[in-house]
């Protein structure tokens, strides 16, 4: 009954979205104020309908209503409550419902905000959101209905893929979708602006906030996914250039470019055309990502369903929305204001250069991910494009990017102002060299290329700190007042740029300076790695709520401060008949000790894999610092600015 109700409100949401897609446009074209304002109510109604449908589906998962096909296929009575709930989006249909829920949530929030924008523009934004809603609600109702019944209903469900039964992975899809789907706001702003010829600085200032929100959640979502891969897959890897990882990286890279270009448009009214194009393309890449994951054209751990019909449907949405928007753009392009004058060394040119780097990176990921499909479709055989390709192509791009990045925030608009940056950046470079030497002295780790990369990482961090203090202007009095009045964009860019450097340090530590051992141990055997010594005390069986587990005990031989025993597990999930590796990780800022339990050998010994990953935590700390930068950028400018 509850499920039928959910199904009903989902169809109702579809009807409301049809209205939301058409009425406001009509009102805006005829300048009918009341019709335009009605868009706000439609957006709220749509969110409430989808929210109820989502709640109904969640309820079905909580009470294990196996007469619903997706509950039967993805849940189990014995599963802990948290994973029953996470199971709602741990499958194709439910995750698409989450997709439209987030879409409607953006419209919902927008309907209460941005009252300073003109009524017809707001109406058009909500109408474009309505089109996307129509497309995706239609997709759900006609090809992937989460409320499909199963008759007869089975007594027990099939359970959720054990690797998905993890707290980080329960939170990963919602975060990622807030980012992914948030790019729809950029798209809606671009199209609404093109439709109404309302493309001014105010437009870009309002857009900037939505791009920031989407970007910071995408950053957190990708980082959480990578953290999950690190500890759950039991390999100690954190980025695999997997097609589905790439699918989320593409909108992130394009969104980062958009974030920089929209700043120029918001502050100077320049680069209007490029900002619009990027806004359309960023959402396009989000759709490409959705297509890649949901159509199953790529084999990946993330692809739940392989159904060509669904793929064709998403491809049609992609072609109409992006194709249509690009046509609008082409029509409006001559009317858009051309860019004002600026010099070679100016903030404008720095931001353009940033966009060249990021656009190239986006294109590289796009080409690398889709090329095997393309070659296969042309009948030229099967090829693989893996990590070695991406490393080879990205490296030559990354090196100049890291070198020039810290210069950007020092440049002024329009004019050349080189002298101002000489002193702070020289200090930053000296500091970076000192830190690199200090690291060498402390650790004595080898590998020259790694030290050069480390110098690059410190250069990014010190450059960001220098840019921050330069703006603070420490020589003048009343600096704490200045700190409060500092433009949010300065804090944001310093944090975000330092975050990249911090992440780079983590990557270097975990790749160049890691130690690894694979050994077969009998109880009582000792194991030495990177100066740490552990004794394997044996493996015992323990019972979890819905799994049985083999748990090994590795006790440190000499008590190093705070280092406790490591308890890596191999879990066997009874309902799903699947195994997971639960690595034991001793986490420190300076290094992680990572132990994974392997299989039992015939002579009774146990395979243990153990790594020491120096600095690895900085990868995710760096991502969080970047996202914090995004938060800082959301703060309103204070009145005195």
């Amino acid at each position, binding site marked *: 009954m509850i499920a039928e109700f959910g199904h009903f409100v989902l169809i109702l949401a579809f009807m409301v979205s049809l209205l939301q897609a058409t009425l406001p446009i009509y009102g805006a074209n005829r300048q009918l104020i009341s019709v335009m304002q009605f868009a706000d109510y439609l957006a709220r109604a749509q969110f409430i309908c989808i929210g109820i449908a989502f709640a109904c589906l969640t309820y079905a998962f909580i009470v294990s209503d196996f007469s619903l096909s997706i509950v039967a296929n993805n849940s189990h009575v014995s599963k802990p409550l948290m994973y029953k709930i996470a199971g709602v989006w741990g499958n194709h249909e439910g995750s698409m419902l989450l997709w439209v829920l987030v879409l409607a949530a953006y419209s919902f929030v927008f309907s209460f905000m941005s009252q300073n924008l003109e009524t017809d523009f707001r109406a058009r934004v909500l109408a474009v959101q309505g089109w996307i809603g129509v497309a995706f609600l239609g997709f759900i109702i006609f090809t992937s209905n989460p409320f499909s019944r199963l008759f007869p209903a089975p007594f027990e469900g099939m359970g959720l893929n054990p690797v998905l039964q993890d707290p980080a992975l329960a939170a990963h899809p919602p975060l990622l979708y807030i980012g992914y789907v948030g790019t729809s706001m950029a798209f809606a702003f671009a199209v609404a602006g093109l439709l109404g010829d309302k493309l001014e600085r105010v437009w870009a200032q309002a857009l900037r906030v939505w791009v920031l929100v989407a970007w910071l959640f995408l950053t957190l979502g990708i980082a959480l996914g990578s953290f999950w891969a690190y500890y759950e897959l039991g*390999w*100690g*890897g954190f*980025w*695999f*250039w*997997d097609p589905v990882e790439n699918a989320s990286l593409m909108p992130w890279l394009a969104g980062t470019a958009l974030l920089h270009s929209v700043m120029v448009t918001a502050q100077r009214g320049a680069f209007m055309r490029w900002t619009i194009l990027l806004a359309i393309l960023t959402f396009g890449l989000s759709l490409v990502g959705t297509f890649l994951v949901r159509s199953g054209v790529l*084999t*990946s*751990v993330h692809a739940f369903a392989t159904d060509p019909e669904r793929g064709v449907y998403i491809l049609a949405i992609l072609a109409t929305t992006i194709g249509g928007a690009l046509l609008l753009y082409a029509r409006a392009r001559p009317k858009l204001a051309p*860019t004002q*004058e*600026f*010099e*070679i060394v100016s903030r404008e*040119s720095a931001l*353009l*250069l940033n*966009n*060249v*780097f990021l*656009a*190239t990176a986006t*294109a*590289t990921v796009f*080409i*690398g991910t889709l*090329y095997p499909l393309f*070659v296969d479709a042309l009948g030229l*055989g*099967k*090829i*693989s*494009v*893996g*990590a*070695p*390709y991406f*490393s*080879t*192509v*990205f*490296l*030559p791009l990354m090196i100049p990017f890291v070198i020039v990045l810290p210069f950007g925030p020092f440049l002024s608009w329009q004019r050349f102002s080189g002298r101002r940056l000489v002193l702070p950046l020289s200090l930053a470079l000296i500091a970076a060299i000192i830190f690199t030497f200090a690291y060498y002295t402390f650790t004595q780790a080898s*590998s*020259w*290329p*790694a030290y*050069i*990369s480390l110098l690059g990482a410190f250069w990014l961090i010190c450059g960001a700190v220098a840019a921050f203090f330069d703006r603070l202007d420490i020589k003048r009095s009343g600096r704490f007042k200045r700190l409060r009045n500092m433009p949010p964009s300065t804090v944001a860019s310093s944090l975000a740029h330092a975050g990249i450097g911090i992440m780079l340090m983590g990557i*270097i530590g975990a*790749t*160049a300076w*890691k130690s*690894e051992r*694979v*050994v077969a141990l009998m109880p009582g055997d000792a194991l030495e790695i990177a100066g740490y010594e552990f004794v394997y005390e044996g493996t015992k069986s323990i019972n979890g709520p819905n799994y049985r587990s083999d748990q090994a005990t590795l006790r440190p031989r000499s008590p190093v401060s705070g280092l406790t025993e490591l308890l890596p597990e191999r879990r066997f999930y009874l309902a799903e008949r699947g195994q997971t590796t639960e690595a034991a990780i001793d986490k420190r800022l300076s290094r992680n000790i990572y132990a994974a339990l392997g299989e039992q050998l015939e002579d009774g010994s146990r*395979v243990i*894999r153990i*790594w020491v990953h120096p600095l690895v935590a900085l990868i995710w700390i760096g991502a969080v610092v970047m996202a914090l930068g995004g938060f800082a950028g959301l703060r309103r400018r204070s009145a005195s600015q």
Partner: protein
Amino acid sequence: MTKWVGGFFIVFLMLSQAMAIEPGEALKDPDLEARARVLSLELRCMVCQNQSIDDSDAPLAGDLRMLVRERLLVGDSDEQIFELVTARYGDFVLLRPPVVSRTLFLWFAPFLIFAVGLFTVWRLIRRSK
């Protein structure tokens, strides 16, 4: 210089390195073992989704790891090993596609795009002066 650049590439390659090798698989000679690890990163596990043989615990990946090490012990060069494996499984086994006519676009497009981007920026700046 070339050694440094090579070192850079290896460091970045190891981004995705995960090590699935079994105890006893590793070669005694550390130099040969290091070469085996780098080679393993370049070869795809044929029965997995997107893993190198170094990452995969599938039996087929294990067989391929052993094959690579056997050939290294016999004294094969990296090229000879790649040739042997490609003859058996085709280009699909190489995670770094070879530069041939059908992959020209794949290899050169990023640099072409970068160059076009730089040129466009340059023109924009010149025009606005």
